[in-house]
């Protein structure tokens, strides 16, 4: 009786594993890239980490959950992080460059242009701070 649900579960696990491998490969390719050109544009003083926050105008979690988290991050670590919100539909080339496939997504770029992380879905201020390397530093 439960043979089909188990088969379906197995298929879902295989599909999920395939998606995970595909996403990991995309992320690895992006993480080895250099985003120094974007740092020069968005963060020319190079004193802070850059967070690119991809959203769309109709994305409710982007405005209601992700944006407050980014504002919280900027408030807690002034001068150490620069956030730039980008409409993924207005900048498809930039979105493709980082393999953005959903919104909200965030890309963490170190002052030297190294890509530290690409997050799909809502990401908390604490997680972003850890990816930037701000954990353990005193908040202001």
């Amino acid at each position, binding site marked *: *009786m*439960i043979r*089909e*649900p*188990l*088969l*379906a*579960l197995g*298929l*879902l696990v295989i599909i*999920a594993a395939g998606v995970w491998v595909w996403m990991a490969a995309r992320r690895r390719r992006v993480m080895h890239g250099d985003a120094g050109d974007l740092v020069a544009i968005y963060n020319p003083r190079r004193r802070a980490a850059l967070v690119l926050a991809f*959203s*769309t*105008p*109709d*994305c*409710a*979690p*982007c405005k*209601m*959950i992700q*944006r407050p988290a980014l504002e919280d991050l900027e408030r807690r670590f002034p001068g150490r992080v620069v956030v730039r*919100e980008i*409409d*993924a*539909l207005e900048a*498809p080339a930039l*979105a493709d460059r980082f393999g953005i*496939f*959903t*919104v*909200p997504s965030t890309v963490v770029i170190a002052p030297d242009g190294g890509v530290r992380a690409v997050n*799909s*879905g*809502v*990401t908390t201020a604490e997680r972003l701070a850890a990816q930037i390397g701000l954990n353990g530093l005193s908040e202001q």
Partner: protein
Amino acid sequence: MAHRAMVDQNAIKFSQTVIAVWIAVAGGLGAPWLIIFLAAALAVSAGSPGRSLFRLLYERVAVPAGVVRPRVIPDDPAPHRFAQGLGAVVLWLSSLTLLVGAPLLGWLLAGLVAVLALLNVLAGFCAGCFIYYQLARRGWLSRRRGDER
């Protein structure tokens, strides 16, 4: 002053958890009628949130028992209702395929709903946002200009 709608984010996560657990139990018992019941409950929830079974469970059981605390923030309830409607449609398709004798496809569709619900709860991944974004970037949806920061 413009009125801003408020949405309890934990109520949404609670209902998604209930949906995922419900589907897992239905699969474990091999009980398609549980999927049909869930599809109906989700359809009611999307169409008339005031009569939602999940809301009832949340407000009358989970919150009073201290299992979860409300987290109400300004938000647009429309996308959440859309997501529930989408879940209901997929579960109705699942029910239909289970009834007409294609159980593997039926359970696969139900499992997909459970996985997407859990992804939202555990990883903040919004399936509705993903679908919208993929359709819009291919030009299959018209879009309005937003409020860039």
